């Protein structure tokens, strides 16, 4: 029997476990999976015996590139890690730098960042759930969710000027304040969101086909999830109420009222439902935040990192020099190291930064939840059907940008 793999790139196994199995290669570019990832699977009939997962096809040297740009220049780069919720990356990175510099952001900025983090989480979960449903053939539900998501993209574009990669965070604040009428439109969108998500619940929650494909498929226990470093919705779907927003509150989360939804058995259905419930909690938090948002400046008054007003740059020499130094040399971040983590839609997004006191980082390392999740994804694939790889992989929500960096 031919024992060589059709694709010999980095196989974990090239010999068959038994002589009646087939080894197949799925991806890295496969129409039924989202994310550029290669899965090598050994099959017994249609049942998956074991899998070997190869990420890395979107590796673009993010961490190396960071070491030759100023702290300020990195903001557009971190946007492109998890490009579905770029604002959370922005704010997590900015907070890590602010910790090193000893900056405390203004109250308005703190609430604004919290509001936008939840908005980003909503968009991310909408994308994940919509794509997962589409892969199962639920085209109507997909279009409902993606329509709402597009309202949100356009709405965020009105604030930031970009649909997906916003580059909106700044060290010490945010790029600009809310435009007039932005919160009014937000309220409208949230009402529409509730209408359409209600319809999706009605379409799929008790749908026999959906339940058969999702319930008891891709199951993972809390113990295995913790062993493989899982965080976020996948860990919560196993029944563990672990959420950094509750456990180690940052930004304004300590002042908000919200629940941490958990699943009961850690299967695909629970992951779907945990995400749907988390979206509702995000909306609940955003409504609280809209009422709490205080007036005041959005940037701290710190000339080390915040750019001076444009009209001052053009009229006085001190501001011109200040602008020049911050742009050309970068903000001088005191020597030291910091690890700062936010609860991103996929789990713990940590930035480990090392500074030697220069305007350019010595090291930037991202603890990307998607990468860690890929390390244990075989635990959710092995033992199930070949066709289950598609919904299970969808429910892991692997984002190539942050996984491969």
């Amino acid at each position, binding site marked *: 029997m031919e024992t060589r793999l059709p*694709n*010999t*790139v*980095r196989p*974990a196994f090239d010999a068959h476990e038994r002589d009646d199995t087939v080894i197949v290669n799925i991806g890295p570019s496969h129409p039924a999976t989202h994310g550029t990832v290669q899965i090598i699977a050994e099959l017994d009939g249609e049942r998956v015996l074991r899998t070997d997962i*190869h*990420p*890395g096809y979107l*590796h673009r*040297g993010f*961490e*190396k*590139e960071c070491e*030759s740009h100023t702290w300020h220049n990195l903001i557009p780069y971190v946007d492109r890690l998890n490009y579905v919720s770029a604002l959370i990356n922005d704010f997590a990175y900015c907070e890590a730098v602010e*910790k*090193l510099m000893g900056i405390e952001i203004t109250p308005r900025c703190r609430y604004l960042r919290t509001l936008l983090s939840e908005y980003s989480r909503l968009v991310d979960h909408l994308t994940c759930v919509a794509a997962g449903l589409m892969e199962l053939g639920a085209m109507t539900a997909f279009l409902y969710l993606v329509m709402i998501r597009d309202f949100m993209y356009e709405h965020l574009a009105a604030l930031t000027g970009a649909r997906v990669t916003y580059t909106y965070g700044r060290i010490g604040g945010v790029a600009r304040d809310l435009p007039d009428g932005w919160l009014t439109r937000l309220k409208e969108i949230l009402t529409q969101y509730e209408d359409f998500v209600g319809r999706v619940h009605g379409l799929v929650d008790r749908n026999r086909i959906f339940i058969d494909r999702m319930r008891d498929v891709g199951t993972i226990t809390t113990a*295995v999830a*913790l*062993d*493989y*470093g899982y*965080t976020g919705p996948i860990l919560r779907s196993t029944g*563990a109420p*672990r959420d950094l927003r509750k*456990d*180690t509150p940052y930004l304004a989360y300590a002042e908000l009222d919200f629940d941490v939804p958990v699943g009961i058995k850690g299967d695909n259905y629970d992951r779907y439902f945990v995400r749907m419930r988390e979206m509702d909690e995000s909306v609940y938090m955003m409504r609280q935040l809209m009422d709490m948002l205080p007036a005041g400046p959005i940037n701290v008054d710190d000339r080390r990192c915040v750019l001076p007003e444009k009209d001052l740059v053009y009229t006085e020499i001190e501001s011109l020099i200040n602008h020049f130094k911050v742009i050309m040399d970068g903000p001088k971040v005191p020597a*030291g*190291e*910091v*690890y*700062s*983590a936010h609860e991103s839609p996929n789990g*713990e997004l*940590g930035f*480990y930064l*090392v500074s030697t006191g220069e305007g350019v980082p*010595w*090291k930037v*390392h991202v*603890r990307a939840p998607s*990468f*860690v999740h*890929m*390390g*244990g994804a075989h635990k959710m694939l092995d033992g199930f059907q070949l066709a289950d790889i598609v919904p299970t992989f969808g429910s892991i929500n692997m984002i190539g940008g942050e996984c*491969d*960096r």
Partner: protein
Amino acid sequence: MAAGILDRVAEALAPDATSAGVAHGILVLTLPPEALLPVVRRLKSELGFDLFLDVTAVDWMPQAPRFEVVWHFYSTQHHVRVRLKTRVPEADPVVDSLLPLYGAASFMERECHDMYGIGFRGNADLRPVLLYEGFVGHPLRKDYPKEQEQPLVPYRS
């Protein structure tokens, strides 16, 4: 509350560490390389640090020993983090693998091996994970130029 727990952890592990201190809310312990496995074993079984977050390295070229390997752990029970650091020389950049204790170590150690060429004793599977077979060098080392070009790998069919 968190500070009390960190003090307890620091006290329990201080005999093995060369230095201990809290920075930005994280307990930082510097260890000799041989103390790593016993310390992590105690962190996991006695002190409740059940989540292995991350392993990476920092290249301090031209200092010696050159590499500083850094691990992060989180306790889902106490909600605190611990950072362990150890220095290894360029000639023998090898530390113990945490694979016997945490499954998550598998992928993360592969990445660290890719990027810095750090060896992990006890992890037999250090295939490239973000890079590819045939990649020459370790890109996050400071002496790897950003513009370096790689040899063409043979066409695989």
